[in-house]
């Protein structure tokens, strides 16, 4: 692709279904696909027998499957199920569990209750983690940070978020999130894959499977793992959070790396001349075409197009990550930190570039939110590391007219307790995992801007109004992207599996614009 014509790459073709003819690809390849398309009769049969995913892998390409849709009936032939409000999603995943009452869930009344025990009526009967279960006291640790009202909406925002506070009018802030899991890995899996047990596809994988690719030279689902914030304890994020589970591995998130080649094995090895690489791909494909003619296996044709795509990715990905064409205004917006590959701000910038190029789902993972002890020290550090990136991303998308069609989601796997973990003093406190209420926000495509949704009690402990379960949250994300969570299914282990699982989930209507 040519860097001088990004405008061709940044839309979903005006909302039309992607077709081969629309794609910015070499003419020869386009012709080949069109030839393949004439096998629609066969593909239709295969679609019925194999289901959508297998069909796609058969021709090696989701766009192919999309092109083959009319007249055939693959599993996802109705996707999108209705007009999407957003064409793509950028998910800012805050691994570890951000402290809702130090950032978003303003509870001024708690200040007077410093070190008082949280009432047992509030604490209730739920199981605590092994880390605080042995405590005899559950003293209230009010947020030591000041809150102020921001934006036209007058939202209360913590002083820890000076940048994000400027864009609150774009956001719908959900205070009533709650989850079933109390430990990190199960809770993260539940947020990202809809199930506490490993083995299920991530949201991005479901969308790649259901909606397919827009840019043929880049992965449909990209994951950016931000670097650790120096000095903040962080636990690992696992690739299970972007796994394709039981879906074909082609739908798995591709984790870009901040050091070395962004995509593993992407770069030509040292000593490989570009012409030699081209010759190698050409000769492999010439030989494979002979095999295809001799053996007649459609998989061979698929492999030919995959080698071509691999070759193109070798150019497209470096072009994506080459920020030298970014204007000065970009750096003013994101700050100099964005020049540091792997920083949260850098990843936000990269996610905007991906949005422009049609990457369907970008997930930025930021670890460092597991603030058990030393919360007084670590909370400001991790907030500072992620605050400006959020602001810059939303502002940037808006300036470029992309916010309306890009859904931005921010959140972690659970919240943190109001009661202190460990010793509470005026200077020091800690917060344990808190699944019963936490705060997330959404902005952009299809989201009602400048609102709050749901409410917690005076202790930021229990949800008292409009609870949002993880499955409802995920159903809403799919909805905004034009997907009915009940209908995007894949048959596995005898069940029509879906992101939102077996318990019924609902789209949160109150969040929709």
């Amino acid at each position: 692709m040519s860097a001088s014509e990004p405008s061709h790459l940044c839309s979903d073709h005006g909302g039309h279904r992607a077709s081969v003819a629309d794609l910015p690809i070499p003419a020869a390849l386009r012709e080949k696909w069109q030839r393949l398309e004439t096998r629609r009769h066969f593909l239709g049969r295969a679609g019925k027998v194999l289901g959508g995913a297998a069909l796609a892998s058969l021709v090696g390409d989701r766009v192919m499957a999309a092109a083959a849709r009319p007249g055939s009936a693959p599993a996802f032939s109705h996707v999108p199920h209705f007009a999407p409000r957003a064409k793509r999603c950028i998910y800012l995943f805050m691994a570890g569990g951000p402290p809702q009452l130090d950032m978003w869930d303003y509870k001024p009344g708690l200040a007077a209750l410093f070190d008082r025990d949280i009432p047992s009526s509030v604490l209730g009967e739920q199981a605590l983690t092994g880390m605080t279960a042995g405590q005899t006291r559950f003293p209230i640790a009010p947020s030591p940070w000041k809150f102020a009202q921001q934006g036209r909406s007058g939202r209360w925002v913590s002083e820890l978020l000076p940048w994000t506070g400027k864009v609150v009018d774009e956001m719908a802030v959900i205070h009533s999130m709650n989850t079933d899991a109390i430990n990190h890995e199960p809770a993260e899996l539940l947020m990202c894959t809809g199930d506490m047990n490993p083995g299920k596809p991530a949201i991005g994988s479901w969308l790649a499977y259901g909606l397919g690719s827009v840019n043929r030279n880049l992965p449909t689902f990209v994951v950016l793992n931000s670097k650790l914030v120096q000095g903040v304890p962080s636990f690992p994020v696992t690739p299970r959070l972007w796994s394709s589970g039981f879906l074909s591995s082609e739908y798995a998130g591709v984790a870009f790396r901040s050091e070395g080649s962004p995509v593993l094995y992407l770069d030509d090895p040292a000593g490989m001349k570009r012409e030699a690489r081209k010759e190698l791909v050409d000769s492999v494909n010439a030989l494979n075409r002979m095999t295809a003619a001799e053996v007649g296996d459609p998989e061979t044709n698929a492999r030919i197009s995959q080698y071509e795509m691999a070759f193109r990715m070798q150019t497209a990905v470096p072009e994506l990550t080459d920020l030298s064409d970014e204007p000065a205004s970009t750096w003013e917006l994101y700050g100099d930190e964005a020049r540091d590959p792997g920083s949260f701000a850098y990843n936000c910038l990269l996610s905007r570039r991906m949005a422009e190029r049609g990457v369907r789902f970008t997930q930025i993972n930021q670890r460092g939110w597991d603030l058990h002890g030393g919360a007084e020290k670590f909370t400001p550090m991790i907030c500072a590391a992620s605050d400006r990136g959020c602001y810059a991303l939303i502002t940037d998308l808006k300036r470029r007219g992309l916010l309306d069609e890009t859904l931005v989601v921010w959140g972690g796997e659970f919240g943190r307790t109001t009661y202190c973990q460990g010793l509470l003093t005026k200077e020091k406190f800690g917060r344990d995992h808190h699944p019963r209420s936490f705060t997330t926000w959404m902005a952009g495509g299809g989201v009602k801007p400048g609102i709050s949704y749901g409410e917690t009690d005076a202790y930021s402990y229990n949800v008292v109004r409009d609870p949002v379960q993880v499955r409802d949250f995920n159903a809403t994300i799919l909805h905004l992207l034009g997907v009915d969570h009940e209908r995007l299914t894949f048959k596995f282990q005898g069940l029509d599996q879906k992101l939102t699982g077996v318990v019924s989930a609902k789209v949160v209507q109150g969040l929709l614009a």
Partner: protein
Amino acid sequence: MKNTRTTPNFTRLRSRTVGGRVAWVLALGWCATSLAAEDRTLSFNDEVVPILSENCYACHGPDPGMRKADLRLDRREFAVMPHEDSGPAILPGEPDRSPLVHRIESTDEDERMPPLEAHKSLTSDEIALLRRWIKEGAEYQEHWAFIAPERPPLPAVARDDWAENPIDRFVLERLEREGLSPSPPADRRALLRRVTLDLTGLPPTPEELEAFGRDELSDAYERRVNDLLSRASYGEHRARYWLDAARYADTHGLHTDKFRSVWPFRDYVIKAFNENKPFDQFVREQIAGDLYLVEDVDQIVATAFVRLGIANSESGTIEEEQSTILLTERTKAFSGVFLGMTTGCAACHDHKFDPTTQKDFYQLGAFFNNLDEFFHTGQRPDWPPTIVVPPDENRDAYQAVLAQRAVVQRQLEERRAQAQSLIADWIRTGPAPAHTISPKALQLRLRLDEGKGSVLSNSAPGAEISSIVVDGGPPEWGEDTWLWPSFRMSEKSRVRFPGAIGDVGADEAFSISTWLQPRANALAEIRPPLGTIVAKVDATHGSRGWGLYYNSVNKPKASDEVANPDGEEATEPTPEVEKLTSHGKLMLRLVGDTVDEAIIVQTRDIVLTREVPRWSHVVATYDGSRTAAGVRLYVDGVAQELEIVADRLSGEIRTPVPMQLSAEEGETNRLLSTRFQDFRFYQRELTGEEAKHLPRAELVGEILAQDPAEWSEDQFKWVSDYYFAEHDEPTLRAKDRLAVFDVELDALAKGGVVTLVSKESPRLAYAQVLDRGVYSQRIERVRPSVPHFLPPLSPDAPRNRRGLAEWVVRADNPLTARVTVNRWWQQLFGMGLVETTNDFGLVGARPSNRPLLDWLAVDFRESGWDVKRFYKQLVMSATYRQSARITPELLERDPDNRLLARGPRFRMDAEMVRDAALAASGLLVTKIGGPSAKPYQPAGLWEALTYPESDAFKPDKYVRADGDGLYRRSVYTFTKRQALIPNMEILDQPNRDESCTRRPRANTPLQALVLMNDPQWLEAARRLAERVMVHADSPVARLELLGELVVSRPWTARERAVFTESLQKYQTLYADDEAAAVELIEHGESEPSPALAATELAPWMLVASTALNLDETLNK
């Protein structure tokens, strides 16, 4: 006695069966008449069920929770039964009158079934079929897979000269019915390539191709097959598939995903296939090898199977939740591997489609719920239970001792098998355990067998206070079973004893007696090391009072004592965190006016453990003498050696603060969650004799006082455990001898490798049926059993894993043999005869050729579960030997090759692709077994997964192998669940989080990038180039060898032209750029051949790389 108890049979584990070999050559003569389609009655299983299960069962199936309109269509008696407001849904013989037909044919959207929101619809053909079925009487059949297979007769076929063996008859009959013909045989080279890859996972060598080409004898192919089956590479290749199913990996999987030492299991599997261990024996060993007579250490190594699943080490872990997760994981894995059933759904609710109920699930789970283990891995490589596999040089001696030990073990088991009659004799002839402890001065006895509620009753005779109410929250009942379902206080509950209970002065004698199970605590290492068992202490007055405590101390863990737990990584230090403070001393403390005025006495030895959930009995006595010498401590009836920490008591210990179980008043308590049973407080000093008999003898006396016919299974176990431990002379003698052997075995195992195994706990196995699968929502306590719709356990089978193992391989088990042969068929043909290899349930795929599947299953079982014979049969068939060429007609008619009108062709699994490249290039190292190897992978991948800031969780570093370790077969590659080597993952290697019996086969650009750019393949390409260049000078001869090595044939002229042209381009490109050429050939650890000029080698390397990237190379 009430319950039927098990009489174990003493058959050895090892199967001696070899009979039942039915020569299939003879069977060829059998034939069956196949009915023309129009004449026959519809088959419910083959034609009707697929429609009903896909469209109707979700709402009208076995799950009551989902059922709509109270209508069930999955069972005939319900489908033809009248309803509240209408008649039956189906009127057999009368489709026109059947409401079901009306509903599926209705044009009214509100009427029509399936309803709109189900997004399903019936085709007119399907509706016609249902009509016909009802017309024919709407007969139901048990689901096909739950009926034990019978050997079907061989079908008649028109072209009976084509068949090489019975497999072909079944395949051909189907093809002829479809009007298709088999493909011609594959070219000999293609066939040798296919069979060599299928049997060994490696391509044939040019020499083998050549020899096979020259061998014109009629049995040339069979001799090749026999040779391949005898190679060590055969077992390595077979093992790899089994390891996918068994979910084998080298790490725990969750959280910090630390190393787990269990690779001896991998080597066991390889060895089992290579020795052609009968499959039934292989099954028994993995499920329950520890519960048979142990004659071979491999039997124990095999039991790692149960424990191979992912397990957690997160600090926030809740023990009961973890234990439920492990039960569920193991039950799912077992069901998937051996039964081909997806039972996991039934952990939360009755299965929606299959008849598996929630109770079935937990009864099955109960088999795996009785291991002697701690539910938290503790981040340990040697997460107990483990054994140390003896080093090779001691292996023979070790096995010899085991053999002797097994003789004694057999005597013990034989003795135990006579328990019923021996105990009856004992009761009749005495002396019965007349050890009833006098209830004198017994102030408090809490049996804690209430089983529910918050009121604890005091059964001390004449007690003033007859019940105590638990404050602060109800206790947890029934999480475990010891004397009876257990009692545990929740974190918030408190048991305070009112009034005079425990109210003693410094000059008064008293005793405490209780069973307790210190609850395993994930955070033991960072909690303060003291826990209260019971105390009456006034913290506001200098801790005046008395208390009994558990005093945690560090104990080195087993892996510290075992050399080389991590194989290659032995040089790395053991992480500090592994030093769990899970062991403790027992301590009694009496404090007078000030803390300095105290008696503190503790056991010299560590006597309690939290490392596994273990019940201990403790007694503490004090004689009122105000001296430490007046204190005695007993554990499990044995007086302990004591250490006196303080011995200066003056003043008074009496305090108004109430006695409290498990805590001092006002204390932040670490043992709140300890389980207790039969807690007693005496206002006198118990004698040593009394302390000895309190744990068991008295309890047994109480049981003996009841009518044996009324005994529960637990009571019978208590009586027999006691009888054999105390009274049965032959057993006592045998146990002494066992102990001697065990010392010898330990000595011989020194220097060996530690590996995870299964070990049964001394309790009876139970599980709790859990509402919605939530660990704390216990509904019903169940004993182990098998799903109700499958043949029941034999009445004499033990209710443990051994009973389960026997059931799995029993001839009437309808699933095991079918599921197994189906999966092995899939390995060779690319797709199982039942496509859903892990789901033989109601919504699993229908078998594409059920007679063939059943024939294979029965034949395999009757052959004595002979695995090599089975694979040989497959590869000897004409079906297997067909050409894989796909004609347009076949592609149209049968794109997936389910009818088998052509030979198999599909992309090889990740490991085969890599191994073939290593073999072709000559890099492959053929060493068998040992610690897992760490070949090339991009830097930084493991480090990204660690807690870099925490000393407690030191980062794991990927320490890449040198030399041979880079080139070993992929079955030996270290499997880190959270970070597979990406090149393998990109080629669809599963992460082994769950049992995997069918891999996806994606075709992606990332695969192309791996094969073109990964150093493993670059190095292979360079070595391959060197190999062909050394072989010959002429490009033609070099290319020919390249073809032989990579695709097992010479190139065609057109192919050669492509290579030749490319070669020239590469030569031109690199001729003037020696630096680039040098860079290119230097990929990989091995040194490029100095005899070859870089500018020559580099172009050939690219030619070789091209060959390694070809579709044909990647396909078998």
